[in-house]
């Protein structure tokens, strides 16, 4: 590993250490499924409604139900106010989240219907799309939607020359020394360990990239444990 400028993490974490996580299922009693996922200061809530009949009718698929994901950050989620409503970034994240989740859900039993997933970020400190996906996977399971497996998501990356797991706001957008920071959100499926989403913002060499992927898979196993714990200790409560 080449020596870099970033030898110690701002948060005091080890390079491959994820932020403290917590998860809870069933936070919105009126929904069909809901979940909250928190890593450090980032918090995401996901609500699932459906399957229900899709309108307008021309969007319906007679062979399968469709999944519709909507991601949004709340106006107060960062220290500057975010203008509410869809924007280019949130539309993109909605779309990629939809693709990532579509690879595990099986809606063939519900033709002409839609399953809506709403992801909201009440508090953001980088890694919101992965936190949102972790919450969404739990909420979909909680809604009783047939799924081949779960998904877990993590942001990995490179800060100057150092490979790190679970970047926070400072590492993701405020660090500009040396080679700057590279951010790679990864979604890994729980059983087959396939990659369901991979994005990359920045520069990284192929050997380094391979190493970050291994780090991501390890971190996703930890996240899966948290998700599993939350789903299993529901105690039949809520809804």
């Amino acid at each position, binding site marked *: 590993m080449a020596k870099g400028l970033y030898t110690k993490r701002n948060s005091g974490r080890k390079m491959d250490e994820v932020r403290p996580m917590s998860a809870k299922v*069933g936070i919105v009693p009126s929904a*069909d*499924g809901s979940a909250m996922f928190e890593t450090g200061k980032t918090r995401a809530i996901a609500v699932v409604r*459906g*399957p*229900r*009949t899709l309108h307008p009718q021309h969007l319906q698929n007679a062979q399968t*139900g469709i999944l519709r994901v909507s991601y949004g950050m709340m106006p107060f989620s960062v220290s500057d106010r975010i203008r509410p409503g869809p924007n280019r970034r949130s539309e993109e994240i909605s779309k990629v989240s939809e693709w990532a989740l579509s690879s*595990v859900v*099986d809606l*063939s*039993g*519900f*033709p*002409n*219907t839609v399953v809506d997933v709403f992801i909201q970020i009440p508090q953001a400190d980088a890694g919101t799309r992965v936190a949102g996906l972790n919450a969404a996977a739990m909420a979909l*399971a*909680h*809604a*009783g*939607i*047939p*799924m*081949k*497996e*779960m998904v877990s998501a993590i942001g990995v990356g490179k800060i100057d020359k150092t490979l790190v797991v679970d970047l926070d706001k400072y590492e993701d957008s405020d660090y500009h020394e040396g080679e700057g920071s590279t951010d790679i959100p990864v979604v890994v*499926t*729980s*059983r087959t360990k396939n990659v369901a989403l991979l994005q990359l913002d920045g520069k990284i060499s192929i050997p380094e990239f391979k190493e970050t992927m291994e780090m991501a898979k390890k971190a996703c196993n930890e996240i899966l444990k948290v*998700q*599993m714990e939350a*789903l*299993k200790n*529901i*105690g*039949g*409560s*809520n*809804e």
Partner: protein
Amino acid sequence: MVAEKRQIVIPGETIVSGNEFLPGDGVYRDGDDVVAGVYGIVNVFEKHVRVSPISGAYYPRRGNTIIGTIVDITFNGWLIDFGGAQNAFLPVAEVPRYINKNEMQEFLDFGESVIIKVWDVKSRGVDVSMKMRGYGKIGGGMIISVGPNKVPRIIGKEGSMVKLIKGATGCDITVGQNGKVWIYGKDTDSEVTARKIIEFIADNVTVAGLTKKVENFIRELGLKTGSVEIIAEDTDGGEQ
């Protein structure tokens, strides 16, 4: 991994391994493993493995009793909204009397509520019937919505909880598996009391020894838990 009784599994989790097991509802086979395809509780009967969901929306199953509302009238039947993914279809032939097709709304009009039985579940929709005893048009009382996952607790073991409420309030109660409950009593007061008790159960579904708690709650309301006259005996909300 060996399946324990009433264990909760998440999608993608291996329940049992071995070729002798048969995957049923909510599970699929991946090589030697039988894997959960839905979040829920494992049921292993002999070599038959299935997972039943413990949360989420209502999925109709054949034989369910449900309560719904007429949303459309077609040339040969009615469409009924029961809170599921699709509407249920009630054909004219599945109604217990002769219907003049020109005057279908004379029998069931838009917005009217019915107690129906799920006859067939296909991927495109649900066929229902109301030809048996205990099914038909709802002509009074009130319908409350509690959610499908609370239904087993409201019915109780072999209908014991429903019987308890019926006995205490004198109301006729039908619990639809889709999470809707029809209460019909002599007067509004007894219906409101029955609703209070059902809502109490719905708020305490996770509590152990619920029957005792409900009995206490009924006494707090100033009612007796013994048997009071029941105005109609023939509802079958008791069967799960």
